[in-house]
């Protein structure tokens, strides 16, 4: 067909500009790109709760629908959306402290056993890693997730978490260290 419009893959930033002008297909595309990543981030940041991860995912994209113009195309979209997600998690932690759920969380916190079995499944290992990261708090966990799950650079992680690059590096170092100390399996694999 002569006038067939060639399908073009738009960047996240271009999709956001189309969303500002009311293009629903652009929103659908952007949601498809990020739903899995953001769901995983919320799931791991909010204590492995699928229900909360779904709620936060919806709230995040509702913010995007209500104020798409708040995104500055001069900056990376992924950095921007993760910084919003991180702020939402921070607010949730504050609410939990107010509700004194934190104490309950500490009381019900599973005891972390050392893993000596080298034949441990990767899924179990990841769970153990996150249990270890729970001991450090959300700041270390978010840096760890953004760096090793999402593959952001140190500079981008610092931008998302609104921290100095040196702080991010030290948090990642400490997180790796504590994970290696707690998990014998990783202790043999990770050297410092």
């Amino acid at each position, binding site marked *: 067909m002569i006038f067939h419009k060639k399908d073009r893959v738009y960047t996240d930033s271009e999709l956001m500009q189309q969303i500002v002008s*009311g293009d*629903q297909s652009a*929103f*659908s595309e952007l*949601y498809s790109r990020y*739903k*899995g990543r953001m*769901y*995983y981030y919320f*799931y*791991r940041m909010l204590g*492995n709760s*699928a229900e909360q*991860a*779904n709620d936060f*995912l*919806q709230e995040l*994209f*509702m913010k995007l*629908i*209500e104020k798409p113009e708040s995104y500055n195309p001069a900056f990376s979209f992924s950095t921007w959306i993760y910084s919003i997600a991180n702020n939402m998690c921070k607010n949730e932690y504050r609410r939990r402290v107010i509700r004194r759920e934190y104490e309950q969380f500490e009381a019900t916190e599973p005891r972390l056993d050392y893993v000596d079995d080298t034949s441990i499944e*990767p*899924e179990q*290992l*990841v769970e153990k*890693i996150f249990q270890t990261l729970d001991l450090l708090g959300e700041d270390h966990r978010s840096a760890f*997730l953004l760096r*090793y*799950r999402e*593959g952001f650079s140190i500079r981008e992680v610092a931008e998302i978490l609104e921290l100095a690059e040196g702080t991010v590096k030290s948090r990642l170092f400490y997180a*790796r260290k504590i*994970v*290696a100390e707690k998990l014998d399996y*990783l202790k043999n*694999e*990770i*050297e*410092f």
Partner: protein
Amino acid sequence: MNKKNHEQLLSSLLRNDHVGEPDKTIEDRLMYSFLLQNSRSKVKQNSFGNFFGWIFSAQGLGLKIGLVTLVLFFSVFNNQFTFEPAKVIGNDSISNQRILLADSAHIIQNVDSVRKDSLY
């Protein structure tokens, strides 16, 4: 194993981790919300809000000043540009205008000739 390798190990562990998929109804709800939001914004586009916003903002200040200057120029000096050649501007007794007003003292009373005698 060096630092790079253990970072790769952690990355591969986390990237292969699956925690399930988000609820599919979320997408439907979001699409509906998008439609609602979009319909609201379209009404907004048809309003004069944007125009008045532009008028009272600092955008295009030179253009606005130019327009206001033109309007003032034509409104203040407009009288200088009116020419009416048929109108004689001068003091001429012939062309003195009479003021025509309804005055009962100046009403001319018509006298009927038939009934003229009866008046005396």
